[in-house]
């Protein structure tokens, strides 16, 4: 899989300048469906249609606008946007290091693996340092006309660049305005015990996309002319607040 790299850059901080190659870490293959016209099963195409004359509009008659208020726009020329493209750079600039556990998982957007591009010694040393100290390097870089914020990390001896979301893209949990409900120490205690009994090591290999497999089987069966049984998803009955303690105790008994 370690074929051609997506991008090449230099990790830069203090006196270090470490050349690396960036690889995509995740590739997904899913069953794809197409949208068809009911009456003749012809594959549909997506077109941009004008709201006024209801006819499709070809690309050369389309322009970009920013809607400032309802129905009124500021027109943007593609050249103006291109002008704003960040300058080409190969620097992955590390600004600071933070304790890795302080980065809330909500921030992680996309991960890339880094491979040494020429000398491996610097990468090995960096990897070792990050691992031993349990830290991540907060860095910024420019790739394919976009500027990224990321966390440089090491795991299993391999360096990664994890692109992060910007702070203002994360909706604060306080905005959900969740009410504080009083819960008894007893309930908390039993729940904690229950969780501890259900705790195990993280073994990602245990999990696979069973839905994809079942979906493929459904498609195959339908292709053979079999009728597919329709099963309605059942909604579980919620646990009533005054039955909560009971449910917790029963759960604990079941797990023990």
């Amino acid at each position, binding site marked *: 899989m370690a074929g051609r790299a997506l991008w090449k850059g230099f990790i830069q901080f203090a006196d270090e300048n470490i050349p690396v190659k960036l690889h995509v870490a995740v590739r997904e293959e899913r069953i794809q469906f197409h949208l068809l016209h009911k009456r003749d099963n012809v594959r549909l195409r*997506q077109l941009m249609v004008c709201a006024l004359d209801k006819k499709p509009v070809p690309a050369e008659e389309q322009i970009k606008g920013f809607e400032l208020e309802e129905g009124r726009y500021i027109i943007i020329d593609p050249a103006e946007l291109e002008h704003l493209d960040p300058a080409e750079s190969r620097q992955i600039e590390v600004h600071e290091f933070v304790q890795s556990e*302080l980065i809330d998982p909500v921030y992680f957007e996309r991960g890339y693996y880094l491979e040494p591009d020429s000398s491996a010694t610097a990468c090995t040393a960096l990897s070792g340092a990050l691992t031993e100290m349990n830290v991540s390097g907060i860095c910024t870089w420019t790739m394919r006309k976009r500027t990224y914020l990321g966390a440089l990390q090491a795991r299993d001896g391999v360096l990664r660049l994890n692109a992060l979301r910007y702070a203002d893209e994360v909706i604060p949990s306080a905005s959900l305005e969740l009410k504080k409900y009083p819960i008894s120490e007893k309930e908390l205690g039993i729940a904690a015990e229950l969780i501890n009994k259900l705790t195990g*090591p993280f073994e990602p290999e245990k*999990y696979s996309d069973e839905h994809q497999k079942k979906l493929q089987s459904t498609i195959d069966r339908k*292709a053979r002319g079999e009728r597919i049984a329709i099963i309605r998803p059942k909604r579980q009955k*919620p646990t*009533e607040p005054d039955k909560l303690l009971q449910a917790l105790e029963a759960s604990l008994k079941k797990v023990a």
Partner: protein
Amino acid sequence: MKSLPKVATGPDQEALHAMWSGTISFSLVAIPVQLVKAVEPGRVSFRMLHKKDYSPLARKMFCPQDETMVPPDEIVRGYEIGPEKYILITDEELESVTPERSRTIEISEFIDLKEVDPIFFEHPYYLVPMKGGEKAYRLLAEVIRQTGKAGLAKFVFSEREYLVAVKSTGEALTLITMHYNSDVATADEFSSGRGEADAHELGRMKKSVKKMMAQFSPEKYADRRREKIVELLGRKVKTSALVEAPAAGEVDSEGPTDLVATLQEIMQKMKQER
């Protein structure tokens, strides 16, 4: 001229619209919840407009054979098994594939989130309790917060089955979808900086890192390109006129001149009489 509306200042209340509703359960406790957005992309979004009159454009499905636009009730879903040969799958058949997981997030075990390689995280959502489930939700959120663990579950959402981690963020429960192990390239595939690091190099590296230690404050970093776009828009607002899309069936905005003049005349008379 008013300032630009909330372009890059973060998500707004509309983000709290529920995307899914169902139950989250662990052992014999079931909690009714809704799924809402936890992140909102910050990019400035533009609309595509018709060059000649600035009417907004919308994505519509078009049938190339009949050469017409196709409304949603004439659209079906098909899986390609050969050139122009499809197996149709209805919404109900799709829902019947994994029905037990489409309305329930069943936590099967708990793990220590620190054990999870960040490369697995895909997309976060918040879980919000529905009527009757507030107490149980509060309990689950609190106990997860205190124990520092996260629940693992499988869950079918939007036609896909996800492995998800349920953790706590402040007072809330966050659900994060994860990539499957088989979809993630293994570290083995890359020649890495493995093996023993040179002691001297390692020491030097650690020293540099130590000098640059700080608290994690992501607000320090802004999306520069986004800021530049907002600045550009701000400048354009001051210098160029806004274009207006014509409303469907709208007539000349001057109005029938005869009528407008008469109306103004009557208005004047009325004001004088007051």
